[in-house]
């Protein structure tokens, strides 16, 4: 189903997800392997602090850093009102730069989001209890381009024929192509959490919070002003009183009237909107309590309203149960740095208790750390391939790198194996599912996966806020790009999916040792 959506999927990523509440994400290298920090001038390539003179250069050769410094200095001198705090100025700049890249998951994160991520890594899930991401989502009116960039801030504004579309000042060149509106999207739902209790499903799009439309961006007064100027009512100057020629009365123009009405409604919608960053902060656990969410589900879209009670949820990220004497059910809800140890413990328990076969349950697992997932892969596959990562090298050329499993001391070779997935299986969980299936011929059971094939790095700033950068694309070991597509299952299952997975248990074929391939080595961190 998702495959047919006209969405800009580049997003589905877990870092932002975790931000929300449920879990932290993919490539949380920034978070788990030592946070990169904006502190101190070391990171700044020797750029002087504000209190010293700017490096000089002049004319067109002036360095961009000097230019920025110069603008700030002039604002401090001449702007009529007191300036906002340095934090706000700094984050405003970062926000604009990241937004301009037009990747919904390369974005600024508030301190609350970063905090929620960090607590999720400890197993405490705040707020909604769902992994969320931001995706560009089109409307059902497929051919209509709906834009959320400031260059055309009104969905519907393009169709207004009778007003000038003024080019706004912060229209950056080249104008990003429009691919739908940035929308908060549910990746996976923590079982037993607030979102689960309210009936949210993976793939749901959250469009309103407490009745307020969630605007895709910060609604600045400048933006509202642009709406007023391009669409607002205008006064007619009276005609020259000496000119007595009658004017033609324009015939009724229902098209224009409709467009104007839509524009008026849109303007009101923007004016009263909840801003996306604020909505995320709320859902990430900024404020507990009841909130009404408006959800769009599926295509064609079904709209429903649910009330969620935000709160903190403790959850076992790894759970292991015996289905019967021989078959164990290993459920992993996320990949955080503690998961490999917990999985190792669970597998050793199974081994002691005579469990021979294994259902690996990755439903509602939105991913997380790649390293954690490839450690789990190493326990089941030994030395093998885990994924293919496409990233930029120092010259900004795109290079491909094969990532291998992390084969530690614990190994569990099941007599038979199946992997359970659903719409909420994303990111490194998808990589694990694909690595198991592609190299051992076991079956994927359940429902098609989410399709998050990007990796983000989180960078945390001095004041606790942070930002994520999409730094790589991920592919399965066979080189299949699954971003925005997801993985198809071998055995579709509804209802008792676990039983279907037990029925689908297959003896894994032997995995060729990855070390046999020359020139491919596992790397813990790419940089």
């Amino acid at each position, binding site marked *: 189903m998702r495959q047919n959506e006209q969405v800009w999927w580049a997003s589905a990523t877990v870092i932002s997800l975790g931000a929300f509440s449920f879990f932290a994400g993919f490539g949380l290298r920034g978070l788990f392997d030592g946070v990169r920090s904006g502190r101190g001038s070391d990171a700044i390539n020797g750029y002087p602090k*504000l209190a010293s003179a700017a490096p000089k250069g002049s004319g067109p050769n002036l360095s961009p850093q000097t230019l920025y410094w110069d*603008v700030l200095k002039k604002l*401090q001198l001449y702007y009529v009102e007191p300036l906002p705090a*340095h934090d706000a100025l*700094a984050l405003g700049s970062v926000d604009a730069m990241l937004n301009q890249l037009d990747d919904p998951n390369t974005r600024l994160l508030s301190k609350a989001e970063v905090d929620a991520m960090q607590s999720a890594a400890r197993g405490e899930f705040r707020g909604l209890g769902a992994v969320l991401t931001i995706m560009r989502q089109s409307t059902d009116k497929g051919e209509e381009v709906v834009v959320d960039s400031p260059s055309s801030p009104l969905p519907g504004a393009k169709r207004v024929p009778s007003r000038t579309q003024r080019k706004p000042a912060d229209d950056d060149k080249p104008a990003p192509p429009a691919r739908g509106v940035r929308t908060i999207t549910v990746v996976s739902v923590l079982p037993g959490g607030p979102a689960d209790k309210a009936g949210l499903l993976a793939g749901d799009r959250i469009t309103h919070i407490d009745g307020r439309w969630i605007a895709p961006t910060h609604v600045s007064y400048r933006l509202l002003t642009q709406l007023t100027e391009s669409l607002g009512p205008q*006064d007619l100057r009276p005609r*020259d009183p000496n000119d007595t020629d009658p004017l033609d009365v324009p015939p009724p123009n229902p098209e224009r009237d409709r467009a104007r009405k839509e524009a008026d409604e849109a303007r009101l919608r923007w004016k009263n909107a909840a801003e996306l960053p604020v909505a995320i902060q709320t859902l990430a656990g900024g404020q507990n309590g009841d909130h009404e969410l408006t959800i769009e589900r599926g295509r064609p879209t079904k709209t429903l309203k649910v009330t969620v009670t935000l709160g903190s949820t403790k959850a076992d990220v790894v759970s292991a149960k015996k289905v019967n004497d021989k078959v164990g059910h290993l459920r992993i809800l996320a990949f955080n740095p503690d998961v490999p140890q917990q999985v190792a413990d669970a597998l050793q328990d199974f081994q002691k208790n005579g469990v021979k076969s294994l259902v690996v349950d990755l439903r509602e697992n939105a991913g997380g750390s790649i390293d954690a997932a490839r450690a789990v892969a190493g326990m089941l596959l030994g030395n093998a391939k885990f994924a293919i990562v496409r990233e930029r090298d120092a010259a900004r050329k795109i290079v491909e790198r094969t990532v291998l499993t992390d084969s530690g001391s614990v190994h569990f070779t099941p007599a038979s194996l199946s992997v359970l997935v659903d719409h909420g299986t994303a990111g490194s969980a998808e990589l694990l599912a694909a690595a198991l299936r592609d190299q051992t011929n076991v079956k994927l059971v359940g429902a098609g996966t989410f399709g998050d094939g990007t990796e983000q790095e989180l960078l945390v700033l001095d004041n606790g806020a942070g930002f994520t950068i999409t730094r790589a694309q991920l592919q399965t070991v066979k080189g299949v790009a699954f971003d925005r597509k997801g993985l198809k299952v071998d055995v579709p299952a509804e209802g008792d999916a676990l039983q279907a997975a037990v029925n689908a248990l297959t003896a894994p074929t032997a995995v060729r040792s990855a070390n046999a391939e020359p020139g491919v080595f596992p790397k813990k961190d790419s940089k």
Partner: protein
Amino acid sequence: MTQSRRSNWLPACLAVAVLGSFAAGVMAPELGAQGGIAEIVSKLRPRSSGHELDPVQTYNFALRNVQDKFFGEVQNERRMTYTAIRGLLNTLDDPYTRFLDPEEYRALREENTGEFEGIGAQLEGIPTKEGYIRISKPLPKGPADKAGVRRGDLISKVDGQSIVGLTVDQAVKKIRGRAGTAVRLTVVRKGEGTKEIAIVRQPVEYEVVEYAMKEGNIGYVSLAQFNELADVKIERAIRELEGKGMKGLVLDLRGNPGGLLDAAIDIASRFIPADKGVVIIVEAGGERDMRKTNPRKYLAGKWPLVVLVNRTSASASEILSGAIKDNKAGTIVGTTTFGKGLVQTVVPLEDGSACMITTAKYLTPSGKDINRSREQRGGVEPDEPVEITEQEFLKSQDPQLKRAIEDLRKEIARREGGARNASTSAR
């Protein structure tokens, strides 16, 4: 030091206020080159030892990381820096403080110099049902007039391109241009069919003040813009109308986008008695400067005044109407004005870009902030709100002017009645 320097340049740049699409931008004296570093540093907040971000370092940190790591396409450092600067300015939540990259800055300068260059014709505000634009008035002896354009001609094409579907504003942009260049208009004229007329654009000197005597000895003066000649021309118009026995005056500021601050103060002095406040100017740092009327210019007193305003009356128009309202020197009729009480200065930057910064704001003499913002609608509210509908426009009706004249008639009658009563009782 800073203060004295500022007071040198501020009056100059207060001259023209920028208002959205209505008026051109402000050209201020070059600021970039002045400013000793030391002086600026003293105004910066010290970098806190806590966890406050330093904007320059944070921007640079993000820039480096994006350039090193981002998987998608990135723009060059300069473009990204422009974006960062725009983000910085966005945090002020002031729609008028904005960054102009070199192309935008160049366009602004050209727009400024080209403001009064065109074909010299007034156009009707609504296109016809065919989508044509009607010429309501070619300026006498202007380029269009000389080329044979007549009132009532319908423009269908500009330089061979159809304008059907465009708004009047959009069409005007195509028609306008630098002096010396030519534009080819295709016009439809009743009874004569289609004609092509080539017009060489020229600097157009249009009358900023127009005046007439209406029925009942009511004078009507409209002011299109506050330029250097505005005050003198207003004075001349009023004196001539007085010579013809004017008993009341309508001052029409509808559609007037503003202009020179000094012109607004001079003209306010025509209508407001000596030594009354006209406007309070607040600069960076909060210093307030009350500008007062010039007593030698006062002309009113003998007759009542009604001022017409609408949503497109802005800036200097709002200073003038706000001052008249606060000082009760006249009645304001029409719709609430635009709400622009801010002054911008264009600060050129070294790489050819520029920054338009709000450097001062106006308050009315009673201290009211008329600027439109997130918090308030702003603008000068009319004492008597009157709208013009599209239907009334098409029928050439002007209910705002009609109300102004009615008001004046009543006031004149009241004053004459009062005078008669006064003289009666004196006997």
